[in-house]
């Protein structure tokens, strides 16, 4: 069975084989519903467009204030902070204000952060999902939360007993199970061409184009092209595409930390 729903600003596709050992079709349908529900939760916690999301609430916090957040939000923030450190600031979700200025995101909230000071590193984790800010922030989790949503959808499917399948959120995709899957990439040169780039089993691939990536400090966009990273989990694949695009270095040491492979197709 293959289903698709509009979510995360794109189309999320879930493919599950109809013959799952020991599962009725009703149970398979339920599993897919659960997976979509996980993605809905990620969207409602971490969406920039939603003025009531946890992310939007964090973006309005004053320095010194602390709040309790959902464990999923905490996990994404911690991962984002780690990758920010390991990439020496190349991946920094603090670029929200710059994306607003470029009209890539809507301006709907009061945040106290000037564009060049906002950084994910300003978040302090106090334990038990409580965070405090050192400085005001304007975060956009668009570069990592989609990958996390895919991972949570896969986790939900597995918890329901699904043994193999594919979750694809507009190009951030993860496959699981014994089968290997051919992966095609939209050509950065020709919109009507797909390039077969390889086959993947038990892993994730994410691709970013240069248009939506901004350098956290210089505000510049990378060279035209498509930047893909293959990793075990989609959250890492998603975030690391930005490191690849901004470093222009397919052998950046960070990829080794995550057992990741990178692929850069120039336009």
């Amino acid at each position, binding site marked *: *069975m*293959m*289903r*698709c*729903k*509009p*979510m995360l*600003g*794109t*189309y999320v*596709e879930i*493919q599950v*084989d109809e013959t799952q050992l020991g599962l009725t079709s009703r149970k398979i*349908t339920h599993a897919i519903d659960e997976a979509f529900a996980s993605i809905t939760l990620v969207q409602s916690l971490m969406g920039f467009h939603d003025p009531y999301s946890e992310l939007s609430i964090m973006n309005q916090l004053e320095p010194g204030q602390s709040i309790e957040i959902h464990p999923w939000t905490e996990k994404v923030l911690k991962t984002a902070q780690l990758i920010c450190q390991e990439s020496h600031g190349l991946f920094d979700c603090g670029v929200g204000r710059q994306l607003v200025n470029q009209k890539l995101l809507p301006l709907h909230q009061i945040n106290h952060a000037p564009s060049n000071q906002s950084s994910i590193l300003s978040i302090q984790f106090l334990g038990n999902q409580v965070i405090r800010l050192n400085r005001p922030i304007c975060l956009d989790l668009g570069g990592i939360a989609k990958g996390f949503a895919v991972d949570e959808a896969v986790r939900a499917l597995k918890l329901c007993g699904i043994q193999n399948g*594919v979750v*694809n959120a*507009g*190009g*951030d*995709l993860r*496959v699981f199970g014994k*089968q*290997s*899957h*051919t*992966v*095609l*990439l*939209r*050509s*950065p040169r020709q*919109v*009507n*061409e*797909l*390039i*077969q*780039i*390889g*086959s*993947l*089993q*038990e*892993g994730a*691939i*994410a*691709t970013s*184009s240069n248009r939506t990536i901004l350098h956290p400090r210089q505000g510049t966009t990378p060279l035209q092209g*498509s930047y*893909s990273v*293959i*990793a*075990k989990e989609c959250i890492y694949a998603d975030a690391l595409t930005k490191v690849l695009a901004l470093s222009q270095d397919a052998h950046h040491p960070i990829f080794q930390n995550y*057992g990741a*492979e990178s*692929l850069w*197709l120039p336009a």
Partner: protein
Amino acid sequence: MMYWQPSLLGIAGLAMMVHPIVAQARIYVSVEQAQQLLFPNQRLTKHPIIVTNDLQERMRVASSIRYPFVGERIWRGPDGGWLIIDEVVGKHEMITYAVGIAPNGSVKGIEILEYVESYGYEVADSQWRQQFIGKTANDPIKLNRDIQNISGATLSSKHLTDGVKRVLILYELALKEASRK
């Protein structure tokens, strides 16, 4: 254990690994499946309506979708819910989708039925055949499965958002009253 096998020919850009998209269709669920997913265990009755010029115009203004809405694919649930099937057409894509509306008028859920991408060149089925090249009888050949896991270039769901807007206007102006009867 993750296993990644890159196809070097494809990465080098050799033509044999490039699949031109002329018109690829991805079929997700049928009308009946969408009904079951959005209104499980409910018996829906078909409730086609005639879309007046006035209604058509109001839907156009609210959604900025220009092509007319066809009022044939509308169903009504026993509890006052509605299921509407509509299409949105973009420059290169056509999406058929179902919207479930709860008795209180809120969106209960959306399912995509079909997604067709088209680049308007000669209509040929060669790209379909290409997908089967190199497959043996042991490979599970099934459209939409085992094939076409596409990464890259996020497709925006903006068109669909406009589509849902016009469906909600339709509900507000033409279906809501009928719910009460």
